[in-house]
């Protein structure tokens, strides 16, 4: 998927690396026993450690280590059996210790790979540079009081994974696909809920441009804390165009940190290079180096679920789906499970794909709900497809039943039974209907027999009408063909 900016001096391409902050799914915070849950009242989830009280010490939450290793394995990355927590020193009112405990030159996870599923069914591998674990800061609220800022430390110490990509992305669309795929993997692994609206996944984008064909890396800008996939894509597009304008005007792009304003769709300087912090990283003397052995990693590996890429490959080979269709179905674990359930019940993988990926997803999109809140259970949809398969109802009838199922949530067998929607497969009844139509439409019969075969559809329609749509369409045409034969 190429993304080329046509400048006055020529074509430019964009070089993008993403840093994603993903909140680790964990009951407690990274270094304290306080709850890491979202949504409590201000400062209700704050321990003495989170508030940076004198003499307080961090104690590593082992669950978070497990989650980070799990994520690293999911990204097919190198797991570092020895890593070091470091202090990142800077002052801010909602960072009580005066430093953030993070990892610096010895992260828990090293290089890995993430596969993008392109819309044309192709794939593209994006390098993962590293993953490290760190604590979140609290929140400053500036608009509650005329002269004071309010501090909420509920987030202070909440565990985050920072997942850094290599500068391998080449378009806003790829950046969007990367985020969606990463979110998909994190959700499969159960290590982050990927909810960008609640801030449990946030993205910083490093953007630079260069003339097409060049391999240099020009000065990049970092766009901080963008909180939706769409905004990330918009911010990158805007920023890339801005860079092209700057370079083409003969000026230099300054390395700086910028903020994206989604209302105006533009980025603005947040911190220039001169104002950049010197974080004075050094190993946190309150924490020992984090060390574990092969057996620990193997133990976690044994509990990994089938991940999207593997599931996709299996759907292609086992169900005969296209790469694109398989990719759509596996994006969410629940959708994939739903599909498999329907496919197995109905015994028709392709029919199941049509109904799940087209009909059902359209309904869910419409309602703005996830597969978990689907008004139709996988079992019911499977039953519906079975009714089609065994000719109890026609495809057209199935659509009607489907509509009723959305509204009522009823079992399709019950709907068909109650409403007498069973398809007529009794040749006698259909024969009678056909005979009547033939006798009443001698002119059309003659035309057909003279070679106007397109009239077959009209005859089928008449039979369906006469049977209130219950006649099996295939059976109808078969019988009609016999009777209309000259």
């Amino acid at each position, binding site marked *: 998927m190429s993304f080329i900016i046509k400048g006055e001096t020529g074509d430019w391409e964009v070089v993008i690396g993403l840093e994603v902050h993903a909140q680790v799914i964990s009951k407690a915070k990274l270094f304290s026993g306080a709850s890491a849950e979202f949504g409590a009242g201000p400062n209700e989830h704050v321990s003495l450690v989170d508030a940076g*009280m004198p*003499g307080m*010490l961090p104690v590593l939450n082992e669950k978070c280590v497990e989650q980070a290793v799990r994520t690293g394995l999911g990204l097919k990355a190198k797991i570092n059996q020895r890593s070091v927590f470091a202090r990142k*020193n800077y002052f*801010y*009112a909602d960072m009580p210790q005066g430093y953030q405990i993070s990892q610096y030159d010895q992260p828990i996870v090293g290089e890995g790979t993430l596969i993008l599923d392109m819309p044309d069914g192709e794939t593209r591998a994006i390098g993962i540079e590293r993953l490290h674990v760190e604590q979140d800061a609290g929140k400053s609220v500036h608009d509650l009081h005329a002269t004071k800022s309010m501090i909420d430390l509920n987030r202070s110490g909440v565990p985050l994974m920072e997942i850094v990509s290599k500068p391998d992305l080449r378009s806003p669309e790829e950046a969007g696909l990367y985020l969606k795929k990463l979110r998909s993997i994190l959700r499969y692994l159960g290590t982050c809920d990927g909810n960008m609206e609640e801030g449990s996944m946030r993205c910083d984008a490093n953007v630079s441009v260069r003339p097409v064909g060049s391999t240099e890396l020009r000065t990049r800008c970092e766009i901080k804390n963008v909180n939706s996939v769409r905004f990330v894509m918009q911010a990158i597009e805007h920023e890339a165009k801005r860079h092209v304008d700057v370079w083409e005007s003969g000026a230099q792009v300054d390395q700086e940190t910028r903020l994206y304003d989604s209302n105006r769709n533009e980025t603005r300087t947040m911190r220039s290079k001169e104002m950049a912090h*010197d974080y*004075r990283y*050094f190993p946190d003397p309150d924490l020992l180096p984090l060390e574990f052995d092969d057996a620990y990693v193997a133990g976690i590996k044994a509990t990994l679920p089938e991940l999207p890429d593997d599931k996709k490959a299996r759907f292609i080979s086992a169900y005969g789906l296209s790469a694109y269709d398989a990719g759509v179905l596996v994006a969410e674990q629940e959708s994939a499970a739903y599909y498999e359930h329907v496919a197995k019940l109905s015994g028709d993988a392709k029919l199941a794909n049509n109904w799940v990926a087209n009909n059902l997803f359209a309904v869910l999109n419409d309602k703005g709900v996830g597969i978990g809140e689907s008004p139709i259970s996988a079992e019911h949809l499977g039953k519906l497809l079975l009714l089609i398969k065994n000719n109890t109802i026609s495809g057209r009838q199935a659509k009607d039943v489907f509509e009723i199922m959305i509204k009522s949530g009823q079992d399709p067998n019950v709907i068909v039974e109650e409403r007498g929607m069973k398809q007529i497969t009794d040749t006698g009844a259909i024969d009678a209907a056909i005979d009547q139509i033939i006798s009443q439409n001698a002119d059309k019969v003659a035309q057909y027999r003279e070679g106007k075969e397109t009239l077959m559809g009209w005859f089928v329609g008449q039979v369906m009408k006469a049977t209130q749509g219950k006649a099996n369409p295939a059976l109808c045409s078969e019988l009609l063909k016999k009777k209309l034969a000259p």
Partner: protein
Amino acid sequence: MTNLTTLTIAAARDKLAKKEFTALELTEAHLAAMEKHKALNAFITETPDIACARAKESDARIQSGKAGALEGIPLGIKDLFCTEGVQTTAASHILEGFTPQYESTVSQKLRDAGSVMLGKLNLDEFAMGSSNMTSYFGPVKSPWKAKGRSDDLVPGGSSGGSAAAVSGYLAMGATGTDTGGSIRQPASFVGIVGVKPTYGRCSRWGIVAFASSLDQAGPMTRTVRDAAIMLKVMCGHDPKDSTSAKLDVPDFEAALGKGVKGLRIGIPKEYRPDGLNGEVAALWDKGIQWLKDAGATTVDISLPHTSAALPTYYIVAPAEASSNLARYDGVRYGQRVEGRSLDEMYSKTRAAGFGFEVKNRILIGTYVLSAGYYDAYYLKAQKIRALILKDFSDAFAKVDAILTPTAPTAAFGLNDKQDDPVAMYLNDVFTVPANLAGIPGASVPAGLNSEGLPLGLQVLTKRWDEETMFRVCQVLEDAAQFPYLTVTP
């Protein structure tokens, strides 16, 4: 009635058990002594009400046969340990008025063992100093005076209040903390026993942090046995401190009396530099002879990186301190000076809240961690630290303990040395290596100099071998027959 304040902890423990006097009487005697010697300025906060209440609880437990290991023993707590409901200042203006809702692990253990807290002891601000002159609450005076002179002397630092209180009979024992010598050097200056255990023996939870990789709590007492009794209570694994060791606590007191026969004692040549104070050198030689007389053999050893220890320490400790002290920002507790912006509030608060020496070290620490200087200072210091550790592990392959002087001089005058931070830093030249290596060290009062001022000898052993350290200390103590201050009952 005997003078209750001059008893050792061991003696008081036995007499309380025999109900010769009550814990309340013992506590009241100490509260009276504190009142009488207020001029020493040993305490920042006195807690007589808490002391009496706890003493009464102790008496009840003694009556019901449920006495703890330190039941009814009046102790002072260095004001670096957070104490529940009692102001904790670290001797800094920035924490003035701060009252923790929690009790440090070490002071909690002392409390659980039945000891009675008399109050919070003065110290150098944030434990940064070797004279107790950097305290926001004023310097502590040593109870000792040079022969024929009346001018005040420093008690050493940073645990200066602890040193003065124990040597002056205001408390039977006190907690100290030792980052570069802050227990041992003041113990040497006032003629008491000071023990810095192995790094990781005592939990650091609830102790205001100075330099996290070096800080270690320990007891300050008048006898080796008392130190052993107190240390046993203070240490042990704490899940709240990731650097505290998962090891059983030995019965240090049981190690006493085993003597030093057959032990090999290392005498490091680097601790006898040109210009070493003659009286200090002479006392050291005396100590060597005492150990030989008791059946030990001495071995000349080398700790080749000793001279690099002090500069290394003055990079590592300020670096960690610059980060540890970032939390004192006026936002959540302690002092705040308002400003027109967040940054202005920070700078005004910290300018007003920290004293000169603390600011000095924050600046040094910030500098050595800065981009472009990190490798040259902090990283290099870490490498040298590893070499110092290796010096000791090589030495302990050959010897069981090392004997050195504790400090290069006896206590100096309250008004000396103030202008020269480096001269002040030299006080720690013999004590700092043990902190860098994480090994245990103790200072034992061994004699007086010609001015009649105490001098201590330092015993170092390998990590987790405090028992050997106590054995050697006790032999020195027995031989020295140290002339403690006399007080009239």
